[in-house]
């Protein structure tokens, strides 16, 4: 039998821990529902689920202030929920409906919320990295102390434009945090089969960018590392790299048969490292919440997700005239 991870001792407050639990659970239940809707044919095209990686975005969002920006790849549903976007609008975009964040014209991979400073949702692997540095350049130019969280995976980390961006981000001291979500598989290619570099964050050293590897399954460790990185950026010291060691439980996309790894490997991580179970144990073991308290949260989240699915099914398809709108600003 697998040994569970010893809960991290922390001075985190009860409210904060309960908040983490709630937010991570929302992402997981939302993604499970998206998987179901995909199976029912209500969601089309590509759909990349974030299940397993919840602690990364939830821990980092806990370090943000109003004005901070975030940008990521096509595996973006978790990031949107974590920064406060409405699950209904996200789910309705997945179903390609008028009520979606992009009026149904973007889909799973291309969603944005200027209001929540969420800049996508980018379908080209690695493209979001210079784009994120550009958001940071604008903030520096405008003279505020905002920070941009630029998320990308271990697959994108081998793209050339990442290193072009590292070079300029450090040269110009841009307030950008490069968050490498190392879930260990670039689609079906494991890190071992794609690089001989020992770490991804270590590549930043070639450009003078500090960074570290973080247990991305531990939301408290993520938050602690995030606070350090944010302080570095806000102090005008340039970019910072966080390599989040994480794991995705589902396939690359809905159509992935996952032949490149064993079921046992997935099960082992789930049982030993699961981010939500970790917080659940912290809450229960410290007597901060009872089973009953957590069941109430579970029920509320389930209702919230069901409501988003109902909204996404009921929202009409975009009007045909929408084909010709928004081509130009």
């Amino acid at each position, binding site marked *: 039998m697998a040994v569970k991870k010893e809960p991290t001792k922390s001075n985190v407050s009860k409210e904060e821990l309960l908040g983490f639990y709630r937010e991570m659970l929302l992402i997981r239940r939302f993604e499970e529902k998206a998987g179901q809707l995909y199976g029912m044919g209500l969601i089309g095209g590509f759909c990349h689920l974030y299940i397993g990686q919840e602690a990364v975005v939830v821990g980092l969002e806990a370090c943000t202030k109003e004005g901070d920006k975030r940008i990521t790849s096509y595996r973006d549903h978790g990031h949107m929920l974590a920064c406060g976007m409405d699950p209904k609008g996200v789910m309705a975009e997945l179903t390609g409906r008028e009520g979606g964040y992009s009026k149904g*014209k973007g889909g799973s991979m291309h969603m944005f919320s200027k209001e929540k400073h969420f*800049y996508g949702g980018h379908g080209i692997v690695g493209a979001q990295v*210079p784009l994120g540095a*550009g958001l940071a*350049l604008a903030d520096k130019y405008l003279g505020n102390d905002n920070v941009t969280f630029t998320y990308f995976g271990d697959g994108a980390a081998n793209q050339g434009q990442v290193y072009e961006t590292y070079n300029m981000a450090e040269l110009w001291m841009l307030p950008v945090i490069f968050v490498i979500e190392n879930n260990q598989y670039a689609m079906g290619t494991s890190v071992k089969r794609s690089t001989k570099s020992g770490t991804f964050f270590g590549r930043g050293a070639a450009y003078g960018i500090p960074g570290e590897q973080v247990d991305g399954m531990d939301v408290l460790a993520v938050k602690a590392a995030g606070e350090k990185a944010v302080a570095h950026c806000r102090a005008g010291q340039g970019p910072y790299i966080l390599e989040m060691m994480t794991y995705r439980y589902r396939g690359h996309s809905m159509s992935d048969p996952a032949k490149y790894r064993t079921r046992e490997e997935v099960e082992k991580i789930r049982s030993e490292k699961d981010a939500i179970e970790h917080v659940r144990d912290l809450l229960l073991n410290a007597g901060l919440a009872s089973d009953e308290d957590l069941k109430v949260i579970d029920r509320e989240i389930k209702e919230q997700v069901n409501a988003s699915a109902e909204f996404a099914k009921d929202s009409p398809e975009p009007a045909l005239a929408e084909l010709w709108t928004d081509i130009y*600003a």
Partner: protein
Amino acid sequence: MATEVLMPALSPTMEEGTLAKWLVKVGDVVKSGQILAEIETDKATMEFEATDEGRVGALLVAEGTAGVKVNTPILLMSEEGEVAAAKAAPVAAAPAVVVAAAPVAAPVAVVSKASADWPEGTPMKTMTVREALREAMAEEMRANPTVMLMGEEVGEYQGAYKISQGLLDEFGPKRVVDTPITEMGFTGIAVGASWGGLNPIVEFMTWNFAMQAIDHILNSAAKTNYMSGGQMGAPIVFRGTNGAAARVGAQHSQDYAAWYAAIPGLKVVMPYSAADAKGLLKSAIRDRNPVVFLENEILYGQSFDVPDLPDFTIPFGKARIWRQGSDVTIVSFGIGMKYALEAADILAKDGISAEVVDLRTLRPIDYDTVLASVMKTNRCVTVEEGFPVGSIGDHLASTIMQRAFDHLDAPVVTCTGKDVPMPYAANLEKLALVTTAEVVAAVKSVCYR
């Protein structure tokens, strides 16, 4: 025996230059490699070295003389001991001849004086396309603090083609940003900055290098407003020299007009005259959408009349009729206009009256002006430098066929560059480019003459 030292060609497109400063005087003994003079081209001030040893016998061109043609003798080098004083012409006399030899800029002569772009009686000033582009950027940067310029060599080098000369001095390094040679990276950064509240102008040293960045121009800049349901337009200008320069081979000689004009979400501008370059670039910088602005190295040094107005802009989607005509419509844009206007001059002598339409913007295209002209002349020839397959001319031919078929007295003929990678050899390069003679022949064919 005295040897003539000739005015050197210091760039692929240099035809003349200014002898800015002599660094030797008559009687000096010079060694091979010694700097003889500073020569200013339209791109930079260069030091010019002696290739042989000898004694300076005479300086044939006075310091400060502009418009010295390439291959004009500028210095007489005597062999050691030879007395050249007798041969030396008075230094001031020579340049007068050289200056007189400088030609009048040909395209200006055929410009229609009537203009829909500025009010009658507007004072005009003569300036090059290069100066017009620079003035457009400087004016917009003065007016709007979020307008900034980035690219390779735009700052301290003063621009690879001197378009951004002086901007670093006026606006400082925060707003005139030299980038490393990293097109994909800095283009992505600029697009992100445009979402973050800036109005970046990205200079590509040439559009050929933007191939490394085309993903960000198309996928990041052009499509995001649509994909975001209208939340995120990218107010950004991508500009630089496009098309063939001279003798720089296949990788540096390509016209991207038809490529970018195919993409919804982009606006595409390709000016010919300095007035259009200025007015359209100012409009581009103010636009809330990504604008691809295609310039031409050969046109940079050409002079045109530009309205001397404090805030002169030209809207997108309005073609300019350079020359009224009744027998045939010639539609072109960018440097293609040079061939179109030259051809119209030649055709006039043969009694064929050509109407010459400059599209100026390729997205949006002013179909109405083209169609109205074709309905009047019943014949159409298109002229562009790009490849023939999927050309702007193909698109116009198809549009004209669908919307003005009954008005056509002949098939539309498209004049384009040839369907080959650009060769280096001078004779082959000439053959690969569209020519005035081809335009004349095409017009005669549609006129059945």
